[in-house]
């Protein structure tokens, strides 16, 4: 079978996740799993490695969606709780709603798209290595401590509401605090006071524009905003990047000197 549907109503997450594993095992040509009536089940997609698999979720999945996942695509029609994309290695998570705190926590590869807003400390400690560049694209706004400790990868914030209209002034504080790699791109103006320790506002160059072009395009495709693509891309962007690769290198007194 190529498509399998599971009704998750009143199902414990262990049962649900077991069913997903079983479905993958029993159907080598499986392309899609549709989960209906999902409500609070945690760890969906945890550690799955089947690259050509798509999981469609209807409802509100529980925390740590797609944790350690390496390959599949998860599409959520609803909001997510905390930490979707936690320590994700590869693949995609597309959320047609909001998501909670620490979205994309420690993510090291793949992409997470959130149509709405994300909670506190999103993109915390994302890191890049060689060809693995994790990407978090946020349609709405992010709460404080966005990209905290960020060591690599990119975060793109579009700052638009449900209709695709501009949300105006960006509120977040302590943006990029402790950042020492990667970059945060925010559509709109940021005051330096909103930045955290070790974060800096850098010029937004042609190269940066190219760097985010595909991510914005992909976002617009997923959420039916193709007509808005150009106006979104060619807007005022603020780039936030580390002051240095080693912002805390001078913190310690050596034993002898």
């Amino acid at each position, binding site marked *: 079978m190529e498509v399998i549907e599971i009704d998750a109503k009143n199902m414990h997450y262990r049962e649900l996740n077991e069913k997903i594993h079983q479905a993958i095992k029993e159907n080598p040509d499986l392309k899609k799993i549709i989960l209906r009536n999902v409500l609070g089940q945690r760890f969906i997609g945890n550690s799955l490695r089947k690259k050509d698999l798509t999981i469609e979720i209807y409802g509100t999945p529980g925390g740590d969606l797609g944790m350690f996942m390496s390959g599949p695509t998860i599409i959520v029609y609803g909001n997510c709780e905390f930490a979707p994309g936690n320590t994700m290695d590869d693949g995609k998570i597309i959320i047609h709603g909001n998501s909670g705190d620490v979205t994309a926590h420690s993510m090291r590869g793949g992409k997470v798209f959130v149509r709405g807003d994300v909670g506190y400390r999103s993109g915390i400690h994302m890191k890049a290595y060689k060809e693995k560049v994790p990407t978090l694209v946020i349609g709405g706004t992010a709460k404080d*401590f966005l990209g*905290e*400790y960020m060591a690599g990868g990119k975060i793109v914030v579009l700052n638009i509401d449900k209709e695709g209209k501009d949300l105006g002034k960006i509120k977040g504080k302590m943006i990029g*605090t402790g950042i020492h790699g990667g970059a945060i791109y925010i559509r709109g103006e940021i005051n330096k006071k909103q930045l955290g*320790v*070790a974060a800096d506002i850098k010029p937004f160059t042609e190269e940066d524009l190219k760097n985010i072009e595909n991510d914005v395009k992909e976002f617009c495709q997923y959420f039916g905003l193709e007509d808005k693509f150009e106006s979104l891309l060619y807007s005022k962007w603020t780039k936030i990047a580390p002051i240095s690769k080693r912002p805390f290198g001078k*913190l310690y*007194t050596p034993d002898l000197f």
Partner: protein
Amino acid sequence: MIPSYVPPKYTPVIDKKKCMVCGRCTIECSWGVYRKDGKRIIIYPNRCGACHRCVSMCPRDAITIIEEPVDWRSHPLWTVDIRRDNLNQAKTGKILLSGQGNTMDHPIYFDRIVLDACQVTNPSIDPLREPMELRTYIGKKPKQLEFEFEDSKIKLKTKIAPNLKLETPIMIAHMSYGALSLNAHLSFAKAVKECGTFMGTGEGGLPKELYPYADHIITQVASGRFGVTPEYLEKGAAIEIKIGQGAKPGIGGHLPGEKVTANISATRMIPEGSDAISPAPHHDIYSIEDLAQLVRSLKEATRWKKPVFVKIAAVHNAPAIAVGIATSDADAVVIDGYRGGTGAAPKVFRDHVGIPIEMAIAAVDRRLREEGLRNEISIIASGGIRCSADVFKAIALGADAVYIGTAAMVALGCRVCGRCYTGLCAWGIATQRPELVKRIDPEEGARRVANLIKAWTHEIKELLGANGINSIESLRGNRDRLRGVGLTEKELEILGIKAAGE
């Protein structure tokens, strides 16, 4: 060697292979340990106090210092110090003088207290990347706030008394101009301004050179009232009444005439070359109500715009005294523990009078809470605060902030040789000799002192973060985060902490 009944405590040794007989040591040593005689250096070890000035300055790194080069017959009761003191007193017939803090081998309670850290149930906070607040306000606080409403708009009805705003809970203690050099004071003043904190003048008045830093200086009114003028009272950020000092509770002070130079004479407003004597008590304070009178008098002098602190030595009934101070309109009580330093104190006082600061903080904090007064008055702890961990523990025991004295001097080069009273400090700290004073460059000195405060501040933030707290007020009096190691039940009870493992 100068003939003496007493063998030297230290002996400098010069490595002849390295020494080029440049004579630098003879200039650097202000104590006269070295003399150049043709092609050799003659050493007078009896004069050496191990201040390391010669060691640090020798261009050939040729000097080392050996402690107790002569063995004494060991005896558990008749310690070497006791015998040396008796020999010296037999020679002079006088009171033994000493500098800096208590040297007795009592337990250092700070070192027997260990700290907590978060594991799982609450996250430790990373102070480098998350907000971490050390700001501390010293001064009177109201018991509760009252509000009024004007057209649905809230207004604060309660008036908040003036408070000192500290960006870090570390201040520099009162050490007088006279005991210390102007350049030492300038270094401190520049450093506290940079760090957003405060220093004390001590009782020696406020030299004009410090006026630019006056908004970071707490002026002191002690029993000698040196240099106390309306201008002096108005200049500083706060005023401290010194009742007593941890190093010598119960006695006054005495700055020898030879230290009363022209500028000190002008600052203290006494004749040049005459002794500056501080009486043991304030002769207008013979009881607690008299103290309240002086507090209010100083408040009047400053139109109630400046906080007034009262400093007492940590003695047995410090808690009761603190309650009296808290009800007197004073804004803060300073408790100075028996490890506290001094320029000069009779050794018998320094080593035998007063109680440990850790016990005093715990007892004062508890008593003020029992009386429901703790929130209204600040507690400043001083005397033997050596490192950031001590600051942290002092605050967890109940202090709002601390004063550091010796540690700030160490930042300027002091090696705690304990001979401040001689006026010969080779590092230019506790001296008035121009050739020694200029050994401190106030800019460089300020940088070193500020570095020390900043480094400790960093460490306190790290410790707070590990304890899962992002603001210093949540540490204040939070004894739950402390545990005792190797303490008796009674000691634990007084400190108000549990034993490790509990």
